[in-house]
């Protein structure tokens, strides 16, 4: 399996501010009633975007730049809550190829990386600057540099971070671990043979 090397993403960005945005808000549970991930992009942030009356309400995802944006700028503890991969799937299918935030919930982060979507973190102040800039200048191109751990926009450059294992996987085109895991088959069998409950005791 050969995967794209994800070193740098240049795109317009969209800010969806707020901390502790959970996976139920990213993709409400009723859209998990499905057997494929197809079409989930349409439902990203559905209940935030649409009021109970079915009408659109003011939300960054309803602005014209949302459709054109490839980078999502969020707050802290983004993606907390359930393990549903439907959450990053819906963002990815909507068109976001990278996320920048203050911090990410662990399962969400892992699910995103496994899709080849880097989630980089900035310091609180830098994130606030980026978020404000993106909101003021929707036409500004933002660069998420996974290789060099930087996020830049206009003449601004901020240091960014991402755990080393995720970064290496992305930039080397090994963000989906399945090939490596399959490679270890012999070692897997050896480990299994030493576990009494696995061999049936």
């Amino acid at each position: 399996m050969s995967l794209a090397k994800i070193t740098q993403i240049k795109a317009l960005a969209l800010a969806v501010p707020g901390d502790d945005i959970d996976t139920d808000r990213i993709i409400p549970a009723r859209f998990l009633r499905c057997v494929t991930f197809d079409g989930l992009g349409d439902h990203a942030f559905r209940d935030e975007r649409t009021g109970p009356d079915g009408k659109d309400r003011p939300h960054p995802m309803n602005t014209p730049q949302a459709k054109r944006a490839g980078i999502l700028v969020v707050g802290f503890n983004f993606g907390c809550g359930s393990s549903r991969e439907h959450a990053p799937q819906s963002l990815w299918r909507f068109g976001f190829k990278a996320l920048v935030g203050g911090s990410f919930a662990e399962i969400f982060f892992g699910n995103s990386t496994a899709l080849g979507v880097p989630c980089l973190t900035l310091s609180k102040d830098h994130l606030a600057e980026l978020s404000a800039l993106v909101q003021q200048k929707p036409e500004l191109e933002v660069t998420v540099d996974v290789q060099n751990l930087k996020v830049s926009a206009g003449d601004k450059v901020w240091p960014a971070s991402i755990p080393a294992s995720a970064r290496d996987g992305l930039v080397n085109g090994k963000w989906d671990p399945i090939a490596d895991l399959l490679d270890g088959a012999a070692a897997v069998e050896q480990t299994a043979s030493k576990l009494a409950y696995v061999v049936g005791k």
Partner: protein
Amino acid sequence: MAKTLFQKVWEAHTVRQLPNGQTQLFIGTHLIHEVTSPQAFGMLRDLGLKVKYPQRTFATVDHIVPTNELKEPYSDPIAQEMIEALRKNTKDFGIRFFDTNTGNQGIVHMVGPEQGITQPGTTIACGDSHTATHGAFGAIAFGIGTTQVRDVLATQTLALSPLKVRRIEVNGVLAPGVYAKDVILHIIRKLGVNGGIGYAYEYAGTTFENFSLEERMTVCNMSIEGGARCGYVNPDQKTFDYIKGKPYAPKAADWDAAVARWKSFASDAGCQYDDVVKFNAADIRPTVTWGITPGQAVFIDEKMPDLNTLNAADRQTAEDAYKHMKLAPGSAIKGTKVDVAFLGSCTNGRISDLREVAKYLRGRKVSSSVKAIVVPGSQLTAIQAVHEGLDKVFIEAGFEWRGAGCSMCLAMNPDKLVGDQLCASSSNRNFKGRQGSQTGRTVLMSPLMVAAAAITGQVTDAREVFKV
């Protein structure tokens, strides 16, 4: 060298280091359900792969099962499609499926322990964030995404990085009317909803030692709400007694060896923790959430926080929360009108929860303004409850008695809030929209507090209502 349970289990299951520095970790037990597995089977088929150890994956159906409609086809065709997909996938790949006609179906985190599949010193993964529940038995158990479900199916392993371990000690005796649920809500309130990021939580101290396995499960279950990927309690005699005789428990000659092995996994005296936090059981009172994250909680007799007492970051979430909950900052939560009472979920849908509530419910009536439902988490729980006559107690009090499933814990089945209804709920998440209505409101609490809310039509103190 003295080691934690986490380290010992990790080492015993380490296959090798991966080129990216992560560990290839063997997953001894894999649990699946209808929501997060179909796409994984799809990926497996696309890649032309088989299930490596089909006998180490166990399936059940829980999220989409309608709890008031026991016959198929279900009125929701998508629910029907999902259950059928799981039937087909488990059949095609030779996986044991605890289907609705087996008498063993239920919420995946209840089925594992009930069947004796959940055992100490093992690794457990499931495409569900509340997998931490199984840590009550001294297992390292965590939730995974669908691509990882594929990884486990195909290789029985995952690519992971080790976690740090925080020991959370609670010592002493809980006052009457204070439960395991209050303990975990209190811990999350104090350590924060992201306080656990990067950690496994080891729950220790006399309070947890005195807890039954069911109480330990309630605590471990909500580790994820505290940001921790997994939580566990060291195995002890109570753990072994619980497992003994269960269908998948080691039998006869294997039993003693298994117990010896399980004991050896407990954290060693004098081992190093990355962090230690201590609480006194006596300081904990019945706790309820007032906001839209499980950390936004107060004791029932406390006032909700004033906005200007919060730091800037908390304040923003709190403003959002007060607006959504239609509650006034600085006021009492006690007395807030309740429309729905939900008793169930993998946090508090076990037999001990039903018994405890039933003990106080006899002779009381649900308020005419409240819709109250009780949903046993599993068929075995339901059967046991009926055997003990608990269903009658609930029905006589005015609760609807339902079939096993996730029900109103989340909105994937017909049990949903309507409009801005406020639900007193024994479940684990109070996120906006979690219970099926965008404007619906959830207040998390212990089962007995749910019963008190059902009877009085208000968020109230169960200790007063039931003279506990």
